[in-house]
């Protein structure tokens, strides 16, 4: 597609590359302070300080996992109760049909199973994964984000976003390089 000088293609955002985690965290802090809100950082390993620098809210994943475990445990016990006391009661030496002590192991295993699936699927789901395509991968150097480089992205949807000004702002944060991200 040919574009004239005036109508350049839309971009997804502007991304800056940093060499150390310290620079990234510092840049993230200053970007937030400058009023940018649609900001994301990328690193080859988790950096705790970014949560505070980017004001990332505590995830609600633990609640989801708790509910998953609760559902697992209840449905596990219900299965045992229904099969052993209602649908197929067998009298073994006059013991109660709802013999709960012997139902403990399976109830426990079902709790763990459901909670673990909630953790795994919840983490992926809330992160929007699997996601085969994402604009950041259009930046060739972004493949270093999984090795040794640190990236800070300001999305074009940010109200304060301006193509030139935002790129200039990122250059001012000691970035090693700044790239435009194609959508």
């Amino acid at each position: 597609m040919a574009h004239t000088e005036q109508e350049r293609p839309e971009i997804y955002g502007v991304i800056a590359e940093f060499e150390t985690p310290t620079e990234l965290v510092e840049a993230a802090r200053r970007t937030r302070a400058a009023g940018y809100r649609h900001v994301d950082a990328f690193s080859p390993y988790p950096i705790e300080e970014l949560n505070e620098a980017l004001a990332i809210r505590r995830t609600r994943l633990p609640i989801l996992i708790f509910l998953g475990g609760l559902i697992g445990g209840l449905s596990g016990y219900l299965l045992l109760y229904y099969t052993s006391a209602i649908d197929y009661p067998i009298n073994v030496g006059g013991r109660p049909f709802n013999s709960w002590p012997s139902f403990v192991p399976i109830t426990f295993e079902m709790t763990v199973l459901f909670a673990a699936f909630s953790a795994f699927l919840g983490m992926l789901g809330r992160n929007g994964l699997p996601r085969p395509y994402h604009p950041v991968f259009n930046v060739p150097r972004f493949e270093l984000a999984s090795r040794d480089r640190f990236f800070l992205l300001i999305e074009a949807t940010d109200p304060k976003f301006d193509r030139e000004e935002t790129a200039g702002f990122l250059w001012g944060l000691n970035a090693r390089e700044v790239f435009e991200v194609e959508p």
Partner: protein
Amino acid sequence: MSTITSGRQQEMIGQDHPVIAPGHNFISVTEKIASIVLSRRTPFGWVIGATITFVMVMMLLYTITYLVLTGIGIWGNNIPVAWAFDIINFVWWIGIGHAGTLISAILLLFRQDWRTSINRAAEAMTLFAVACAGLFPLFHVGRPWLAYWLFPYPNTMGMWPQFRSPLMWDVFAVSTYGTVSLLFWFTGLIPDLATMRDQARHPLVKKIYGVLAMGWRGSARHWHRYETAYLILAGLSTPLVLSVHTVVSFDFAVSILPGWHTTIFPPYFVAGAIYSGFAMVLTLLIPIRKFYGLEDMITLRHMNQMGKVMLATGLIVAYGYLMEAFIGWYAGGYEWFMIRNRMFGPYAWSYWLLILCNIITPQLLWSRRVRENMLVLFIVSIIINVGMWLERFVIIVTSLYRDFLPSSWGMYAPRLWDFTMFFGTIGFFLFMMFLFIRLLPMIPIFEVRMLLPQSRVQSKAEAAAHD
């Protein structure tokens, strides 16, 4: 710190090997680990090992085919020893798996940084060990094509499984354990799969890792949820792993057979499981580390610590043996008869060999020189593996072969097909390990990055001091 270092201090410094050798950076650790997988050249040693173990897998498949076509009569087990190699090997394999979960989950919760380089391989070991374990009860049911009857599903027979039976608990415990271990392991792999995707040069390889990485891009928000999920999965796996061998021990303890019906079984089984699992981790890692030159990342510190865990769990197991004998004597009657048979009966060799392998040999581990000598440690780990197998042999065979009526006593001896099945699973296990180290990063790259000093975010004051 003072510059004068006494001999004693030097010794202490020597004791504290780092978890990662100095001089590494983000690029070197990434490339070191990823290149084992991405290198086009398959090492010759790998080819030899994989071929030998593949032949063993074929032996396993041959055995299983013959078994399914003929019936379990081809094995040596029969009344009174109706459970023999099947359950011995099942318990042995499940126990081995436990070290993987202990390393990846429990040591994570205890913030032990030495777990980092070894957790991936140990978890892979868990998965393959559980797969091997599952084969034995599956084929021991006799009609494996009906094994799905174990699961509760509405059926035209109008029946449900007997949920008060420990065997049903076992089905749930082991299948949950296998599934959760897989989820935990795969969760840990996701960021590394992204690294593999980005490091790979071949387009097809890139695509495969790309699909598996599911578009992971290392976003700070993703890491935040990821770490939460990973920690909670560790928290869930911890009671799970303890419950699994507890339930396995219930298979015995809930019955009313002398030698099985004891309350000490659950803790002593769990300790034994961890004991044998660490032995297997060492048996695998000592050669792998040497062969791939990973001494920088799997250091003497790891070896030393694993030796200590083996010593500790070995002592718990020793206490278990002691208590079993004591309670047998204290209870008298059938219990004492069983213990005397176990110690001095026709299977006495297995009992004393067990004591030699599992109690006497690990006492060597008190010495740091032994824990840091790879050859000796390797031999000790093999002896413990054998010992833990013997433990299950002793518990199962010597409790069953002489019951209450002398007229129904009988001896047990395994047959050829017992051995081909057992060694076949060892082959399968090792073959899967070979595939694993060739196809996936065996050390968690992103976690090793976090061990490097440069991964730390410096405070303003520190940064100023450096400038």
